[in-house]
């Protein structure tokens, strides 16, 4: 770090310093990787069907615990945030939703950090939280 000043993974994985957009970037990575691991685990889990009903039932038992419920709630949250923010990113990364480029005037307010984008991020986080709470209430029968 000292000589080449490259921040490395630590800098990439630090969600602070640069506003909600950088937090969304961090959440998108974490949830993307989380979902990838879940997806691999999910294939392993469902393939137990090939070994008959008993094997499948015992696999399902794994998530019928408090920890299992919390894990599933996290998966729900990751899914919802990743999808919501993913749609925002697909639209924005195709160049839509920025308005027109214009001569910048001090104090500069970048169009790429506009309210539409911020709102989509907050809504994605909010929906993820709601979905997790709903999931937890169903799983814990409250």
């Amino acid at each position, binding site marked *: 770090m*000292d*000589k080449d000043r490259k921040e490395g993974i630590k800098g*990439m994985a630090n969600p602070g310093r640069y506003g909600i957009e950088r937090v969304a*970037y961090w959440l998108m990575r974490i949830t993307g990787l989380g979902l990838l691991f879940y997806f691999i685990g999910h294939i392993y889990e469902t393939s137990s069907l090939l070994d008959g009903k008993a094997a499948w039932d015992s696999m399902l038992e794994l998530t019928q615990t408090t920890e299992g419920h919390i894990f599933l709630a996290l998966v729900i949250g990751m899914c919802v945030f990743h999808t919501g923010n993913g749609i925002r990113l697909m639209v924005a990364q195709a*160049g839509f939703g920025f308005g027109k*480029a214009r*001569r910048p005037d001090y104090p500069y307010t*970048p169009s*790429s950090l506009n309210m539409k984008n911020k709102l989509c991020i907050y809504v994605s986080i909010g929906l993820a939280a709601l979905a997790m709470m709903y999931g937890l209430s169903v799983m814990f029968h409250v």
Partner: protein
Amino acid sequence: MTKDGALPKGFERPTVSASPNDSSVQEKYEEVKSSSKTITLRISKFNPEKDLRTAFHAFTVPYQRWTTVLDAILEVKSHQDHSIGVRYSCRQATCGSCGMIINGKPRLACFTKISELDSDVVTVEPMNNFPLIRDLAVGFERMFSTHKRIKPYVIREDSETNPGTKEFLQSPEDVEKYIQFASCIKCGLCNSACPTMTTDSTFIGPQGLAQAYRYVADNRDQGKDERLRIIDEPHGIWRCHFAGSCSQVCPKGVDPAMGIQLLRGYLLGYRK
């Protein structure tokens, strides 16, 4: 200025009516100096040729409402430690030399007032994701060569300098389409904030990509296809994840993140 010609409150200058040798001038200077507040300026010191690691040296520096971080560093360099390595030139956010990390964020030292930082301790470090030369100065060779690689000039078969050719006219609306991106002063703050640059030093980076857009959006230019080919590579435009940190720190309102996404529109076929 107020109506009667006086400066607004807080902006009054000390009135000195004496010859330069007059001791009252010195007294006035001392008075102004002692009336100002002080901060602790922590400066990152590291000489790759001598040192093993970075050390922070702390200095007490007086400041006024208008004192910039660069002023404070130069005050220390003049009076307390001549050896501090710092690069600057214009002192007015135009040359792009004085980018550094100030209290954790990439900023221009000449464009950041101590008073706006709202902190008794100001820490200055060299920018991240650039090779260090010494102390606060980093090397721009790679950023400049990447900048050149995207062909930062209007490409045309004909030329304004050919005999008989008229200058290429543009309407104000045509100018508006790219002028925002032409404000770039190549300070590198955006590259320093970019999360992709933290791990991929071969990434073109927000600076270069924003400049690619500046020329692609210029209706005099005919090099769009060429430029799009250059940025459409493994360490090119697709490594941007739209974290927006570049636009967050850009001191000139360039908004590189917007330029990059608009550029993608061309590559994806949504823009012509």
